[in-house]
């Protein structure tokens, strides 16, 4: 999507995030956090030229995007260079242990999934943003899909990482202006 589209989505998601209780609605609060973060992050990646702004959308299969057909009546899937990234499936630090430890996403010998080759090296501020994303992503499997408690400490660390990510992206693109508190 275009940067403006990511930011429009981010603003609505950020507002919805604020309507959920961090404890009572912990799973969906977290999921909204990561969904909003994904939009902000894609805006930042487009802004610095690491990924392409396009009118297509990432599927669960890395590198496979879906777009409207020319007559806008059907959808078609195609392999494309990195546009929007789907953060849960696209570790930005592919040498990190979190990627190696998730063999279902990249079983040994399977080169078809691959790792997106960004259009340019991540600038320093987006490297910090990626680390913030990793802090948020650390909660997803153990506590949202699994049973590890979503402790106040985890909620706070997610909240801080989210605020940092939003601040970085805001500085890069002049938006988003959502409440990241």
């Amino acid at each position, binding site marked *: 999507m275009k940067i403006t589209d990511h930011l429009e989505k981010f603003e609505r998601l950020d507002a919805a995030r604020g309507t959920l209780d961090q404890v009572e609605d912990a799973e969906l609060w977290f*999921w909204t956090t990561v969904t909003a973060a994904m939009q902000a992050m894609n805006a930042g990646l487009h802004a610095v030229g690491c990924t392409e702004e396009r009118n297509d959308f990432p599927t669960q299969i890395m590198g496979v995007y879906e777009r409207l057909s020319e007559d806008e009546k059907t959808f078609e899937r195609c392999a494309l260079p990195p546009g929007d990234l789907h953060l849960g499936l696209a570790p930005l630090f592919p040498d990190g242990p979190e990627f190696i430890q998730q063999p279902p996403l990249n079983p040994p010998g399977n080169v078809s999934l691959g790792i997106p080759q960004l259009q340019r090296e991540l600038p320093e501020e987006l490297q910090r943003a990626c680390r913030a994303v990793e802090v948020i992503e650390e909660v997803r499997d153990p506590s949202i899909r699994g049973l590890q408690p979503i402790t106040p400490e985890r909620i706070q660390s997610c909240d801080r990482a989210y605020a940092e990510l939003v601040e970085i992206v805001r500085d890069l693109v002049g938006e988003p202006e959502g409440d990241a508190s």
Partner: protein
Amino acid sequence: MTPDQHREKAERIRASAEKIDHSVYEIVVEGAYLSSMHWLNHALHKMEVTAEDHDVVHAEHLSGMDRGKIGALMPEILAALDEMEAFRTRYVRGNVAGGLAAARRALELYDVVREAAMAAKSFQQAAAE
């Protein structure tokens, strides 16, 4: 996770999604999908297709064998999850027009998955019948 633990997670997430205004259709769709995935795992464990220490994360990542087994017993679950996955690509990660309708449909699909999962039984038992 046990089937009951998946059910509890699914119901918590579904209850939280009730608080979301449908103008934020992305989270309505995501809430329906995330809770449906817990119902899918609930069903897979009851069907004894997957062990309780192995949960499926995405319907699109199921093996062909698992899809075949689920499709033989509960094709409506696979169809519903595939439809929701398409919604996530187009309306959550994408900005195709029609998000409100997708949100309404996702909640209907959640009900389909939940009902099928609650009725799930062992694959071997179903085969014997």
